């Protein structure tokens, strides 16, 4: 494991919103390095001109009609909410900006 592996793990943890303590970060960084080493076999293969295969279904143009259907009642929607505030989901107060 190098420091750059550790930095990478810390950056990824930040992006993925996973709080890691120092020991965890080190453990994952070590595994990262080994796992990515195994995966470098992918680099050996020439792939120019090959189309990426994103989904195996091979379907196209699946759409539905623009007709409303009843969904969840407010009760049902909020039933599992960890902090329900009447008809809303409650979360820690934010000033108001994404990410």
């Amino acid at each position, binding site marked *: 494991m190098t420091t750059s592996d550790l930095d990478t793990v810390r950056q990824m943890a930040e992006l993925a919103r996973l709080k890691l303590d120092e020991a965890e970060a080190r453990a994952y960084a070590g595994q990262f390095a080994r796992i990515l080493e195994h995966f470098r076999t992918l680099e050996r293969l020439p792939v120019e001109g090959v189309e990426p295969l994103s*989904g195996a279904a091979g379907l196209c143009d699946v759409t539905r009609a*623009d007709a409303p259907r009843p969904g969840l009642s407010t009760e049902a929607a909020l039933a599992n909410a960890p902090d329900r505030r009447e008809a809303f989901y409650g979360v820690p107060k934010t000033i108001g900006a994404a990410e």
Partner: protein
Amino acid sequence: MSPLTIAPSPAVVSPRTGVRWVPVIGLEVHCQLATRTKLFCACAVDFGAPPNTLTCPVCTAQPGALPVLNGEALELALRAALALGCAVQPTSKFDRKHYFYCDLPKGYQISQYDRPYCTGGGLLLSNGKFVRLTRIHMEEDAGKAIHDRGDATLVDLNRAGVPLIESVTEADMASAAEAVEYLTALKEILRYAGVSECDMEKGELRCDVNISVHPEGEPWRTKVELKNLNSFRFVEAAIGVEVARQIEGYESGDARLVPVQETRLYDPERNTTRTMRSKESAHDYRYFAEPDLPAVSVAPSVIERLRSCIPELPAARRARYVSALGLAAQDAAVLSAERAVAEFFEAAARLSEKPKEAANWITNDVLRNFGDAELGVRSVDEMALRPYDLAELIRLVDEGAVNVAGARKVLRVLMKSGGRARELVKTLGLAQVQDTAQLEAWCRAALVGKEKIVADVRAGKTQALNALLGPVMKASGGTADPKLVQEILLKLVQNG
């Protein structure tokens, strides 16, 4: 409503240094598609609904839920592309755009990244400048986070999943006026094509502005993004203060004031822009193709069918009104601004065979009456007046059966509750009186005790008679033929 006129030179001359600064402006406009349901689920779309009453497993991101594309949303998006002259891509795909926020339930937004459904296109401004569109893509809206109610932030997911198109222009605009004209034209076209109502108060049209300034002739400089522009007025004001801020920043000589690449919010109360409280690190959205949705392909036959469904757009209509119907440019602009008004006008013009008179009645009376709270009729859709009725009213005035004042009264009744113009003239007692004997009687009565006026008229000031028109009209209950009254008054005075 007059068409905007653009100042000839967009350069802003600094009073401090005399340097000519050129603003460079691009717009990102989010527009809500006028569908009944959301983009990827069958929940209804309804602006005023109580919180969290329009959700389902899909738009609340329950484990195991999956998106299904709304076919109507795709159609409206394609119509927008055709109306704006874009090239529709034969295939496009959806991508996941990842970030964490409380109004984004899945932790990613389904959007389109590297293969949007259309590219190119744009709009011609009145000063001859063509503002190019880079692309338009479809994406789902986020929910709403409310920060000013209590000690927690409250999340309402009614809006999560509502269908949007995001259109991005090239940085082709150089002034607030150009930007506002672009937005006005964009809104008009999208409404005409039935894509969206674009009601900014309901958040159906949202605009972010990218803006930089540079000295004329020099390379472009740092771009700043402005958000929270909730009306065209705000857009105009925000651009103005931001341009000034950036110029000042560069000219100040203080390194801390030099503009940096960032996102700023417009504060309408202070009329300033301020830095948004957000991280400095660039967003890493980790885009990848949405595996739960197949690709979208659009056949040429579909494009042709949609193209034929798009109504004649405002600019073309305006030109036709001027060239074929002989209207003044100003009137053409007013009449073509809203599709319902334009279509009403065209029908009335066709039925009356008097386009200019139909235009006058609509611009001077019908549209003005929409603003009359007492009448309570606010739009073409709400009024009972039909094009045939207006055509008949025009004919009645031309025949002399009713004078203009009387016709105005009839029009109000027609707009409010409908009816037949000819009948209403009778029932309201507005039939124009052209019987010379009766008119003479009223005129004689009005002349009593008006020796001064008689003397003035005989001395050559015929306009002094205008003072008598009012009393005669009043005596006649507004039904006297004003032209005949004027002739008779003159004859009586001159003949003694």
